[in-house]
């Protein structure tokens, strides 16, 4: 039977940090998707995972806040310090979530329920008033982390602690939907969707399937989900405590700036995580210890079920340092940094990003896009969209990044928009004029070239006048006539396209429409 765990969870922690008033609708967005929202926003119909535009149409007056994990992590340190008054040893998961072994504190404070009620009061005081508007904290106690996490989630909604009886986790989980696997444990959305379509709608349904069958069909991620659904500890039985030699410690001259410590942490973390990865392992629980010259000490255990990358380690060191420095006046510079992996497991490929395989580069780019929109304006930050068409400017276009889905581009880049018979084959032009430039095309005598309705060229084009410059045409091809949308008077077009190779080696694509010549694109 898995050990008893307590979980403290504030599902909408980013909203607490953003500071929501009692009736204020606040929505926190990441990559134009809702990640957290206040109660008032939920009452208006906003839900997590919605697109920005959708959320805005539900709640037009809502305050939109960009997701900033650093800010959330720093602010959460204060909750961690409050919890430490009752529970000395705990692990911090994502900001907003704390997990601890419940047996000791429960004995000391007179039972699971008394302990969780006390903890909830303590945390609500530390979190301030705004946490109530955001949906507040929840405390759940159960056998195993997953069941305790679900209990905490339900408790956050009801406002009272939820305690699952000893050995009752499997029964508690059985009627709950499988989608909780994705929300609470980070199981991939694909797997959860597939389970649902197969008719395994509740966790009990999944747990009732023989483990061997689940492994045969879904492999290791399936076994992970199956073990969770059955109320078992997700920690695989093969997991062992790592050898002592893995901890990395750096001592240095007193440093007064957290950036310098974070920089050292980056080197140490890259070495540590790299060594583990070379052995096919990932670290799931890590203790970070920082000490000052005068012996002031801050230690914290960080937990991430999907495994900590070196960037995630650095991020957590920064949260811990900033939170520590802002809470307590330190009397001396920092002299010691120690990273101690407490739990490692074989890297079995269960690690998926919370939102489906996002990388660090994706996160940085998304944050940069948000800042760019603030600096440059919504209409100036664009992402490509596939449209389809015969002319160079028609096949692709730009749309504001503000309204696009940045992580799942399959909607705007469909890949195939039809055969488009009559489009010019060969390499696509590198310079496409969004608005065609007027030009003049003449023969050697200076007469403007004319293309008849039947596609006959009056003479071979010799000179092109672009702006004020007159250039010679050395070779040319065309005309390729297009007549599109003849049924629609407003959008119908009748033109003939050409390719001209100019004397300096530049290849241009031009078109003639109603006796007027236009420069469409260049192969620069």
């Amino acid at each position, binding site marked *: 039977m898995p050990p008893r765990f307590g979980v403290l969870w504030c599902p909408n922690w980013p909203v607490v940090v953003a500071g929501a008033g009692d009736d204020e609708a606040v929505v926190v967005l990441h990559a134009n998707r809702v990640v957290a929202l206040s109660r008032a926003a939920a009452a208006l119909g906003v839900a997590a995972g919605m697109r920005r535009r959708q959320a805005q149409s539900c709640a037009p007056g809502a305050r939109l806040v960009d997701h900033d994990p650093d800010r959330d992590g720093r602010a959460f340190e204060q909750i961690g310090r409050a919890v430490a008054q009752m529970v000395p040893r705990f692990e911090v998961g994502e900001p907003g979530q704390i997990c601890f072994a419940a047996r000791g504190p429960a004995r000391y404070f007179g039972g699971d329920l008394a302990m969780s009620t006390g903890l909830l009061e303590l945390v609500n005081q530390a979190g301030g008033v705004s946490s109530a508007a955001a949906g507040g904290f929840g405390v759940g106690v159960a056998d195993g982390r997953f069941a305790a996490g679900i209990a905490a989630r339900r408790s956050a909604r009801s406002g009272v602690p939820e305690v699952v009886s000893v050995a009752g986790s499997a029964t508690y989980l059985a009627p709950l939907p499988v989608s909780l696997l994705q929300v609470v444990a980070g199981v991939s959305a694909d797997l959860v969707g597939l389970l649902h379509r197969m008719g395994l709608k509740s966790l009990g349904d999944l747990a009732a399937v023989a483990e061997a069958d689940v492994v045969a069909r879904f492999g290791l991620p399936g076994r992970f989900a199956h073990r969770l659904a059955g109320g078992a500890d997700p920690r695989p039985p093969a997991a062992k405590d790592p050898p002592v030699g893995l901890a990395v410690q750096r001592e240095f001259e007193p440093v007064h700036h957290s950036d310098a410590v974070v920089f050292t942490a980056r080197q140490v973390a890259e070495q540590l995580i790299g060594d583990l990865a070379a052995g096919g392992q990932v670290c799931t629980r890590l203790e970070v210890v920082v000490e000052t010259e005068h012996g002031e000490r801050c230690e914290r255990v960080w937990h991430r079920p999907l495994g900590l990358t070196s960037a995630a380690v650095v991020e957590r060191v920064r949260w811990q340092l900033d939170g520590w420095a802002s809470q307590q006046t330190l009397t001396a510079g920092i002299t010691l940094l120690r990273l101690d992996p407490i739990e490692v497991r074989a890297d079995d490929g269960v690690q998926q990003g919370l939102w489906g395989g996002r990388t660090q580069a994706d996160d940085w780019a998304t944050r940069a896009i948000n800042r760019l929109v603030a600096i440059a304006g919504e209409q100036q930050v664009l992402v490509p969209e596939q449209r389809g068409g015969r002319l160079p400017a028609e096949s692709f276009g*730009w749309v504001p990044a503000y309204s696009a889905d940045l992580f799942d581009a399959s909607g705007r880049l469909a890949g195939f928009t039809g055969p488009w018979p009559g489009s010019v*084959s*060969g390499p696509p032009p590198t310079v496409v004029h969004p608005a065609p430039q007027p030009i003049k095309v003449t023969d050697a005598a200076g007469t403007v070239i004319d293309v008849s309705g039947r596609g006959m060229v009056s003479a071979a084009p010799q000179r092109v006048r672009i702006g004020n410059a007159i250039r010679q045409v050395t070779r*040319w091809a065309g005309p390729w006539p297009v007549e599109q949308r003849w049924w629609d008077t407003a959008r119908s077009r009748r033109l003939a396209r050409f390719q001209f190779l100019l004397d300096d080696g530049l290849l241009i694509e031009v078109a003639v429409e109603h006796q007027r010549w236009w420069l469409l694109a260049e192969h620069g």
Partner: protein
Amino acid sequence: MLGAASLASARTLPVVSLLAGVLPAVQQGSTVACTGQAAVGVALALAAGPSQAGSWTVVAGQPTLGIHAAADVGVDLARLVAVPGESFTDQRWGESLAAMVDGFDVIILGGAVRSLRSTTARRIQARAQSRGAVLITIGQHASIGADLQIDSAAVRWSGLGDGHGVALTRQMDIEVRGRRMPRAQRTTVQWPVVRLAYASEPVVQPVVQPVVQSAGGPVGGSVAIDHDVALGQSA
């Protein structure tokens, strides 16, 4: 950040096979100027290597960028962002570029950034160096000193006749000069690479008269015609 610059210079970004002969890798934090006839194409080709490896690319001040060409040379469009910024002031460009350097690995600077003040440009370049981002300029920007210059010259298109055919591929001479390169590297590349399947097809005599097609474009036979011209050129 402490010593990040020295660390960044040791790292490189991958280069696509098109340019691999002259340029094995691009150092993170460096500035590359793409000049000559095919400057835009070479800039896109440079961005393609990192893009395929998961990096994000931003195109600043180049509203005329051919998106299809970017995809064709290997840039992943899901990780491409553009900021046209045609009427931006120097200060606005400075702020925007600083945000870009923080979040993107490859920044392509087009014509609208050409008027950047040299103090702003130096600040952005220093930031790119410590962050490990690569700046690629289209054309020679007066205020931005480049570590590496890739010049494309003598572009020879094949496939195009006198009133017939269609442009199929180009050959060009690429020359790479750099501050830390003792000698300029030169090579001739064909781009895009024409698949060999075309070459084995029977060669059709070129049609001299302009081909008049009702609604269709150059399809079918014209590919063979183009290649005939292409072969004649390379021989």
